[in-house]
């Protein structure tokens, strides 16, 4: 060890938030892809489900959701829902379980004793979510297009919609994940508490089941939560416009999608800010 006394060199400043944020992002991504279980249950799960639906139910060829609508492949129907599920898994489920585990095993306490700013810590988490979520969406689109022959839209305005639905959706999901990470009391209970929430949301929000075929009261309940709006936004991007008649109000209603996601994003931000602590409780 170098024989330099710390006291002899005062005044150097702590590295800035941007630099440590990027530093943390790299570390987070490294950790993410080394954890086999998250790679499967968070990263590959929507891809796996898309493939499963297409192979299991696609045997009869294309189907018609309504007599007046054009036929569509199983993969084509499920692609928007799986993209939305990806946002929920990569943002919400991933961060909620991850941060709850870090709090419970003492990682957060250790980080709290260093000059790492909480802002940089979250920049690292959000950066990890942004990178893994983007890779996941790209993989989903590639598998849908090349393995299952789904025609991806060509119009730039559809991709613009995709961009903001993706960005708003994954940010809101990530912030809500941070807020909910305060709920589980131990690392062991983290998955038990978080995964069922995500799973139920996926069933009622049009991810696994076609949303228009759910009863109205269930659709109303689902409309309270953000996943339904992510899925609706994704349907607006990837389904032909004729399918808008299946939506409530017989239109894509992108303004409501925008509003709902924005409200959840702000709610998530406030809740995350209020609930986050480096250590579990300070009496």
């Amino acid at each position, binding site marked *: 060890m*170098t024989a330099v006394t*710390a006291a*002899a060199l005062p005044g150097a400043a702590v590295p800035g938030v941007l*630099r440590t944020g990027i530093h943390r992002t790299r570390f987070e991504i490294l*950790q993410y892809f080394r954890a086999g279980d998250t790679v499967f249950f968070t990263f590959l799960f929507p891809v796996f489900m898309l493939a499963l639906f297409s192979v299991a139910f696609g045997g009869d060829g294309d189907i018609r959701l309504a007599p007046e609508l054009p036929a569509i492949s199983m993969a084509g129907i499920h692609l928007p829902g799986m993209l939305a599920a990806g946002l929920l898994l990569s943002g919400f489920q991933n961060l909620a379980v991850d941060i709850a585990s870090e709090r419970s*095993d*003492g990682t957060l*306490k250790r980080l709290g*004793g260093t*000059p790492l700013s909480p802002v940089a810590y979250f920049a690292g988490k959000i950066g990890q979510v942004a990178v893994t979520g983007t890779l996941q969406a790209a993989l989903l689109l590639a598998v849908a297009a090349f393995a299952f022959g789904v025609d991806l839209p060509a119009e730039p305005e559809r991709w613009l919609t995709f961009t903001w639905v993706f960005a708003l959706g994954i940010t809101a999901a990530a912030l809500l994940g941070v807020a909910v990470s305060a709920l589980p009391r131990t690392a062991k209970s983290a998955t038990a508490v978080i995964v069922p929430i995500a799973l139920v949301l996926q069933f009622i929000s049009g991810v696994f089941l076609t949303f228009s075929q759910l009863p109205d009261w269930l659709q109303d309940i689902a409309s309270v939560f953000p996943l339904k709006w992510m899925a609706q936004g994704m349907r607006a991007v990837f389904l032909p416009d004729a399918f808008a008649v299946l939506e409530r109000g017989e239109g894509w209603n992108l303004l409501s999608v925008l509003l709902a996601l924005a409200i959840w994003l702000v709610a998530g931000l406030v809740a995350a800010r209020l609930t986050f602590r480096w250590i579990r409780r300070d009496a």
Partner: protein
Amino acid sequence: MDTHAVQVTGLRKTYGGRTAVDGITFEIARGETFALLGPNGAGKSTTVEILEGYRRRSGGDVRVLGVDPGDGGLDWKARLGIVLQSTGQAGLVTVREQLRQFAGFYPRPRDVDGVIAAVGLQRQADTRIAKLSGGQQRRVDVALGVIGRPELLFLDEPTTGFDPQARREFWDLIRTLQADGTTIVLTTHYLDEAAQLADRAAVIAGGRLRAIGTLDRLGGPEARVPIVRWRESGVARAERTDRPLAFANALSARLGTEPEQLEIVRPSLEDIYLDLVEDAATSPDLGAADSAEADLSKAEDVR
């Protein structure tokens, strides 16, 4: 620059109605290694966590490197190194990756490979932390504590679970840090470790400071009075005296024979420590009461 790394005056901490720390006062000089001794649940960990900035105090005044830990910002944290009692490790990354990550948080970190070598993990540098033994993981903890070149290092039971050789090597590592001028606050259950490393020690029991001083004076002269033990008419007898030889001679003369099972012993550090802790258990107000009250009035002024 102030000469004290740590100044604690009349520190109090209550949880609900329970008092965990009840008026503790001590100072630690810069460059000093200070050991905190005491049974579990005695208020030792609470005190250290207040110094580290993890917990807020209920009363009294605390300065760590001249700063109130309750207001300590990131620049202040950059001057500390904290090795917690038991902490989670990012098991999926290697020793070098983890140290590089932490080095990135500090303004003037030590060299990563240098620190790996100092804790004796060169051969494990590219091994994932989850694959290391418990003792090796503990060395990673210590490496993370010193990577930021701290002025003040907290070590909470650093060598629990070490084999004797690993403990010796760890002591050597601490001596290098001492030579660098690092102030060290060591919490330990091993009195030999405190005797090996610490300049001074404090015994905390029942939320109060029971003794403070250099290791060879801890507990005061009365705690070190030699003991003469012998058997007389089948009963074990003992006498504490400053003149054990004269006492033994007088005893021998009185009995007219060599006293049965005669021994003259000086209390070991462990004997002294156990006496202090037992006193605390039987008479909770011993000694500390006066200073605690004086500190309380002062604490209110400060707040």
